């Protein structure tokens, strides 16, 4: 079963009518994943015996629909690795809230997708389980860290997948793969069961070809949870209710820092075309400034790495995961297990974070970054006083070549400059396909950011753009034989 021409609604319809059988669907889906993955390696684990809920109730849109889960989200009974050697054999004995909610909605959990190790990276090249390839061009990266989820959706392996986004990890791969991806407001979705990278920035979100599919999945996974003390108790609206609307009178901010010359020409052109489209359809376009944009990359890397350095201390070879075999004493259990268990990028961030928190560096690095974060938040608050959404590119470029940036961390980090701010401010942000770049022929993502808990406006604009260009009708070229 391939999903390139399906939506959750179409599947729901076929299942309801008996044209599809949920158990057979799960088998066919797994089979197709195995076949497609020979080319793209989007999955770490495929569950060939995926459990299908009994007594399917097709009022649940997701009943019997196979969904893929990024491998940093805990799935009880299904190996969860965060794409790291240090968790290569980890068998969870509890369930994450999002997966519990999906199961309650009778979705089928079909497997676990590849990613950058512990979600640290922008290319899915730091995975212990090998690269994932971009379905549009197998020589290019799928982006990251949710590169596996993005490639799985773009190639039709699944109709929708969960990802996580700490600094752009849903939006950038969505952009690189020509699909939709949304990072909700911080606190909109429970983090219980999300293997932490940076706790104050991490947020689980959804990736799908079609905007409505993500709205339907978000309807299921969002909301209060008594296992996460940072999740909001605000009521969850029906996100599909924001679809099918026009944009007349909508106040759209375009930060001048987001349309600078640093943005590659093909990307800029595709994004500008969508801004023009919004304007032609009655939206009010306001050029604004987010003056601290040039500081977001260092601010992010200090904060995220500091939190990560502590979050990843628990991987010490004692209670679970990889323990170095030749460790002769306790210190060696710690040091060898960690040094052999973590990849280079993870070690770089642990080192940066440990340094930023260490005696003598805390005020200068961690505290200063936390203060600059306040200024970044204030930039956004000011813009949202007069605007409903902020738009621009997701990434300064389209999917780059495999192995082209992995050795230059600074270059890789600077890629995230347009996505990081939404995590710093905790606001919802999405990527919707703007078209193919005239210069590279690869998909370009159009970013839409909303005010806190205003996913509604983000969905509204994304859906409007999807209807205007029907990008979903284009098939990824890399999979053609």
């Amino acid at each position, binding site marked *: 079963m391939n999903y390139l021409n399906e939506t959750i609604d179409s599947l729901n319809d076929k299942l309801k009518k008996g044209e599809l059988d949920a158990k057979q669907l799960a088998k066919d889906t797994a089979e197709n994943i195995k076949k497609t993955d020979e080319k793209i390696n989007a999955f770490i684990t495929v569950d060939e015996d995926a459990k299908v809920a009994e007594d399917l109730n097709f009022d649940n849109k997701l009943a019997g629909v196979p969904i893929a889960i990024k491998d940093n989200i805990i799935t009880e009974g299904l190996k969860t690795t965060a794409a790291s050697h240090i968790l290569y054999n980890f068998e969870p004995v509890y369930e994450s809230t999002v997966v519990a909610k999906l199961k309650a909605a009778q979705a089928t959990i079909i497997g676990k997708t590849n990613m950058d190790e512990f979600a640290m990276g922008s290319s899915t090249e730091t995975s212990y389980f090998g690269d994932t390839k971009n379905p549009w061009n197998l020589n290019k990266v799928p982006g990251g860290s949710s590169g596996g989820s993005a490639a799985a959706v773009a190639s039709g392996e699944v109709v929708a997948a969960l990802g996580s986004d700490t600094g752009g990890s849903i939006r950038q791969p969505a952009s690189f793969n020509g699909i939709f991806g949304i990072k909700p407001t911080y606190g909109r979705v429970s983090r219980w069961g999300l293997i932490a990278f940076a706790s104050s920035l991490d947020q689980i979100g959804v990736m799908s070809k079609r905007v409505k599919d993500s709205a339907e999945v978000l309807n299921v996974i969002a909301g209060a949870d008594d296992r996460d003390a940072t999740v909001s108790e605000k009521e969850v609206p029906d996100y599909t209710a924001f679809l099918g609307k026009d944009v007349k009178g909508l106040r759209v901010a375009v930060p001048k820092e987001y349309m600078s010359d640093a943005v590659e020409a093909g990307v800029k052109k595709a994004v500008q075309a969508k801004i023009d489209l919004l304007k032609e359809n009655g939206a009010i376009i306001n050029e604004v400034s987010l003056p601290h944009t040039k500081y977001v990359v260092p601010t992010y890397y200090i904060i995220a790495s500091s939190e990560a350095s502590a979050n990843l*201390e628990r991987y*010490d070879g004692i209670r*679970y995961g990889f*323990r170095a075999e030749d460790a002769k004493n306790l210190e060696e259990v710690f*040091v060898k297990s960690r040094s052999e268990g973590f990849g280079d990028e993870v070690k*770089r961030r642990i080192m940066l974070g440990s*340094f930023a928190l260490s005696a003598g560096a805390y005020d*200068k690095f961690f505290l200063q970054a*936390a203060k600059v974060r306040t200024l970044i938040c204030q930039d956004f608050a000011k813009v949202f006083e007069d605007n409903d959404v902020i738009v621009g590119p997701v990434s300064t470029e389209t999917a780059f070549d495999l192995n082209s940036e992995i050795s230059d961390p600074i270059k890789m980090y600077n890629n995230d400059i347009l996505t990081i701010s939404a995590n710093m401010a905790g606001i919802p942000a999405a990527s919707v396909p703007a078209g193919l770049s005239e210069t590279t022929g690869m998909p370009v993502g159009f970013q839409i950011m909303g005010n806190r808990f205003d996913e509604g406006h983000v969905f509204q604009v994304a859906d409007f753009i999807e209807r205007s260009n029907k990008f979903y009708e284009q098939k990824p070229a890399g999979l053609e034989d």
Partner: protein
Amino acid sequence: MEKVTNDTIKHVAKLAKLEFSDEELTKFTPQMGKILEMAEELQAVNTDGVEETVQVVDRDTVFRDDVPEKWQTRDEMMKNVPDKSNGFVKVPVIIDKDDDQ
């Protein structure tokens, strides 16, 4: 700022329980230097009187009621333990604690 040296890296590595070979250090130390140079740019921002933001949560922490619940059995908890014995987690002998609690 002071240049990042192999010694700085070794000190931080000790805190983080990581080790790097000399070969790794020759690659790693200049990378860390560049990253910290980038981080250094933040010193240019005037943050006088600015409060830090460490979270973007929309409410106070919520409390749990003091009701005991059993979630996992010992067998479940032991499932992933690399080395165990009689219901204990087994580790090479602990010589010195670098700490108080």
